């Protein structure tokens, strides 16, 4: 009885997950596909040629823009997030619960509300329509996430190694670089990767603060959906989803795939 249950479950889960990507792949590889044919009438790489050829400049530059924004967000999130995670993971102090609530709110309150509130202020500070403005607004939700990841990491961290290094004459900086960072490296990678992904998936906050000047990939994708060219939109969607797969593969390979259960 159990013999068929396992493969069936595996098959159901796999096909439910694969179905949307299957649809995107079909459309991105179709050149002519009349209703109601089940499969494209003519297959071809027109959409892909358009994405990397005809419109290549635009799409590749928005791809680059997305990568830069997400990488900057991830970098800042980690640099600021690691110390806080350390404090939260290692020590008891007054106001820890309050701090945890303060850090939870930005993850849950939609970036839409924050971006609308910040916009006018950012215009005055000349941060609107700039790269750093967009990174700052992405930071509001990706930094707390990085802090929570590092909190978890430092909860299982043994400071004795640092004491030993110090007693052997290591400087503060050496303790950080040669003991703390290597020991928490996989956690730091998780925090960085998921800050990256959070920023990568953002649409509205980028649109509000970037004001159309910072055209990341999702902004491009919305424009394409509006134009109604389905194969091209499908191809761009597949490009857009690639980092998500890479991150997942990486975390499965290096981190046992356990650390991402908290991500949405």
């Amino acid at each position, binding site marked *: 009885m159990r013999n068929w249950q396992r493969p069936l479950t595996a098959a159901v889960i796999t096909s439910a997950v694969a179905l*949307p990507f299957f649809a995107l792949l079909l459309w991105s590889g179709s050149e002519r596909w009349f209703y109601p044919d089940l499969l494209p009438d003519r297959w071809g790489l027109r959409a892909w040629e358009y994405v990397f050829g005809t419109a290549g400049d635009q799409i590749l530059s928005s791809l680059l823009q997305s990568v830069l924004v997400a990488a900057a967000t991830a970098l800042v999130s980690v640099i600021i997030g690691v110390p806080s995670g350390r404090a939260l993971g290692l020590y008891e102090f007054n106001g820890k619960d309050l701090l945890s609530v303060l850090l939870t709110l930005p993850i849950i309150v939609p970036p839409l509300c924050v971006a609308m509130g*910040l916009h006018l202020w950012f215009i005055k500070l000349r941060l609107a329509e700039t790269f750093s403005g967009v990174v700052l607004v992405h930071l509001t939700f990706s930094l707390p996430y990085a802090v929570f990841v590092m909190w978890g990491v430092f909860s299982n961290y043994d400071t004795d190694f640092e004491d030993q290094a110090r007693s052997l004459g290591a400087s503060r900086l050496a303790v950080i670089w040669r003991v703390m960072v290597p020991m928490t490296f996989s956690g730091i990678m998780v925090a960085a990767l998921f800050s990256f992904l959070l920023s990568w998936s953002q649409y509205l906050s980028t649109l509000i603060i970037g004001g159309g000047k910072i055209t990341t990939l999702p902004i491009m*994708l919305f424009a394409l959906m509006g134009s109604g060219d389905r194969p091209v939109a499908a191809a761009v969607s597949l490009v857009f989803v690639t980092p998500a797969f890479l991150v997942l593969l990486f975390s499965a390979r290096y981190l046992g795939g356990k650390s991402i259960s908290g991500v*949405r």
Partner: protein
Amino acid sequence: MIQLPPASGADARTRRSPGFFCIAGLITPALSVVLVLFGGGLVFGLMQSLGYMPVVGMNALTREHFRAIIADPDFMPSLGLTLYVAAVSTMIAAALSIFTALILHSLMRKSRIVYFIFQIPLTVPHLVIAVAMVFMLSPTGLLSRVALGAGLIDSSAGFPLLINDRWCVGIMLTYIWKEIPFITLMILSVLRNVTVELLEVGRTLKAGRWQRFRFITLPTIFPSLGAACLIVFAFTFGAFEVPFLLGRTYPMLLPVWAYKNYSDVDLMARPEGIATGIVIAAVVIVTVIVSQGLTKTARRRGVIV
């Protein structure tokens, strides 16, 4: 994208405290980003929605914008629809997640590859799935072609409207696809510390399958499930991309409506857009507080670790 904070107190082994200044030094950068950028964003938003916009010469504090959105005939239908979408998709996702978690727990414990595949939706941007839903569910989409091929409908006109539709089917399917792995993994993390012993006891006492589920498994997973659901609800309530792509033009979901007003050429509509954003934030914050309360109670009872 949520990771619940680890239980404070439980994890931090008592260490010699490094002193107030050290801790303050460690947390100040993050705290100031949250207070200045996030808190500042909300406070500035609130001020603007109360009519305080010195840049355009509006200085008086007024409740007029909030009154205006509540009086707007579009507001209530929009709020209702948003609550409906968030609540129904969360409930369906929760029900399916309990089922999936139990199956995965009993059948697939050793299958890492299935777990891997199952985690894919966690990292995929909502927008991509919304685009895929258009391709699958629109009147000329894949499903419609399959239905026509199977003789279920005569033409694309016979296919039910599932995108930009009245019942927001496409929007909800996108959320359900995205959230099931999240809720399921939250349940699985507590299912692991249930209680083979407890189930054994149940069996010895001749509790049936349903009774064992109802009185042993469900109470154990409930706090975690509840927290996951509130998080999902809060997210769904305030998300923009999916309803923007898959929703109808009337009534709009609240986030779409907020942005429509905000980006209106008429600058007077802008405070109303921000006020709508504040309403969304308020609903979500209340949800979070409830969620935190739930988790805390659960911890006190020792159900979650």
